[in-house]
């Protein structure tokens, strides 16, 4: 009997090679005609698919709301990509800003890849995971996240990755 996905949740794997592989994929997408925004959307879709499967085996809470959203996001990053992140909320613009100085999916700037960050995948994954957790919840205090952008990234040559989400209360 092979190891199950449920069991895999309790282990850590080394990411170095797979991180590099994301950038080979981006090169492959670009050379086969995908434009900048298409590439980002495909990466976010990968993240959403990861979230859909991951949610079947792990979720940190039963509901995500405005009170716990920062902690939930920090927990997700810690558990899934082993990153300690800072999560800020900008209530005037309904934005959530995640800062990760040791992003698991970005590390180096590749001139031939250009301004693409592997953590676009996380943008899709985190928003989808929160959506799945809150799916079915009737509480008006629940929160939904929409990926906005990776505003800074180690892959762009910055010092940290900054992922920006827009949030709305009670669903969209």
């Amino acid at each position, binding site marked *: 009997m092979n190891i*199950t996905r449920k069991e895999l949740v309790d282990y850590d*794997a080394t990411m170095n090679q797979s991180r590099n592989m994301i950038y080979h*994929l981006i090169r492959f997408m670009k050379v086969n005609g995908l434009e900048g925004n298409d590439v980002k959307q495909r990466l976010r879709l990968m993240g959403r698919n990861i979230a859909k499967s991951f949610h079947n085996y792990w979720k940190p809470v039963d509901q995500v709301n405005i009170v716990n959203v920062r902690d939930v996001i920090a927990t997700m990053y810690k558990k*899934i990509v082993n990153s300690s992140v800072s999560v800020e909320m900008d209530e005037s613009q309904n934005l959530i800003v995640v800062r990760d100085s040791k992003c698991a999916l970005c590390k180096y700037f590749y001139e031939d890849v250009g301004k693409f960050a592997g953590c676009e995948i996380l943008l899709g994954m985190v928003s989808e995971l929160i959506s799945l957790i809150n799916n079915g919840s009737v509480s008006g205090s629940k929160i939904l996240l929409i990926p906005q952008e990776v505003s800074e990234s180690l892959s762009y040559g910055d010092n940290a990755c900054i992922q920006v989400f827009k949030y709305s209360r009670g669903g969209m």
Partner: protein
Amino acid sequence: MGAFQWLMKKVMKVFSRTTNSLFYTLLYREILKEIHEITKNEDDSVTIFREFGKRSAYESCERHSSIFKFMPGNPEKILEYFEVLWAVVFGMEMGEHSYEEIKVEGQKYTEYLLTIANNPICGGYGDDEEDTFKFKKLSKDTEGCSAGLGGMLESVANFILKIKENEFRISITETKCLAKGADALELSCKIYDLAEWQELTAVKLQDKITSKVHILDSKGEEEFVQDSKLDFLDKLQDVISLDKLEEILDEPLEGIKKRLADVIRDKLNMEPDHFFDYFRNYEDDMIRIIGFLFIHVLNEYGGVIEKLLKSETFAKAVGYLFRQIKDMALLFIPIDVVNDYHQLLINFLDGLAPPEMVENVRNMSGKDDLYLIFEGAQMALENLGINFSELKENVWEELKKEREDGLISSDASMVEETQEKFPKILRIVQELLMMISEVLTLPIRVLISESHYGIKTTVNSVISEEEGGLFVRFRDRIDNIFDVVQEMRE
């Protein structure tokens, strides 16, 4: 898993970036699916995926080439380290597995078949709606879900062989896949001559696939590798590559004496007793020279010590640490152990040096040896930049002074971070001290068994896991250190 495989696994694990294994597996799946989204052809997708695995791993190896220099440099030995690579990549032991050697007639080298019962890559594949890549559509000869992994492992293995200037290469391909319906993962490892390998890999990826997609050419293995910038590691790996360490452990005292005698004859063109005769009646200085040379030889590899001591603060810190060790050495090293080392020195000189000199050394004590070695080491450290005369009575006075000068940051977060890490640092120091103490008991075992079975027996006996010997305790302590380091990194 042998001692060095275990150590390598620990080192590689600490210095790698980890994520959750399920995330890793799902990301791996998604990359393959995205390739397929473009090719629309399962066989081509797997072929391209394997190539991406190869290129990714090679890129990683190139960045961390120094660490691979300590790996053994021949194909069979590398396969012995396969378990290490597996454990590092997946964060779990390889579990139930078997090796099979297959000798094919007409084939120059043995082929190895590795069967692994559990494969995290395809663990639970098919359970989720998003598992849309159809492995069962793959043709019989195409690899399965571990193609990317096979590419990575092949790349790492060949990178090691290349930097070790070995004339062989290995191919690692998946021959049975759980996701394709097999009952276990099977990897086939074949060994090739370099020329044969180059011919085999000359076919471009673009020519291996049928779909009309574009693929960027690889930079090519040969031009991809750069020499390590760290001369120190380059030189060190000549001495302590893992397989050589194993050889050293097998060597009894008489063998080492014979080697030294050969070196003196070969390099200095004189008999060993003539060489040692120069030190007759200057035995004190000879022992000082051991400490002096020890520091300078360490520094010889890349001038690392000298570079580190250029920083005044660091030089002071090392100075205090050195003085502390010197003052406290006899508190944590039992005098019997020191005397055992003294006896070891006498045994070492006996036969190499003139009898009168051996007698003079015999009249000294182990304690004298220790102080003289420290004196020699202190002289070397002074040469390299530590001004011992400037050091305060103890390190706390130095810290107090710097606080008054405002040299230590008063940033609250820095202080908090330091306070948080301090107990962990203390734990590391404590574990290191305990390790040193335990290693220092080695000569007792060496001397007792040397007269009967030689060093090899001793080393083997302390390595024995059932006896809970030195190795087990040593491993536990290193385990603790790695755990704390990993906690600190997180």
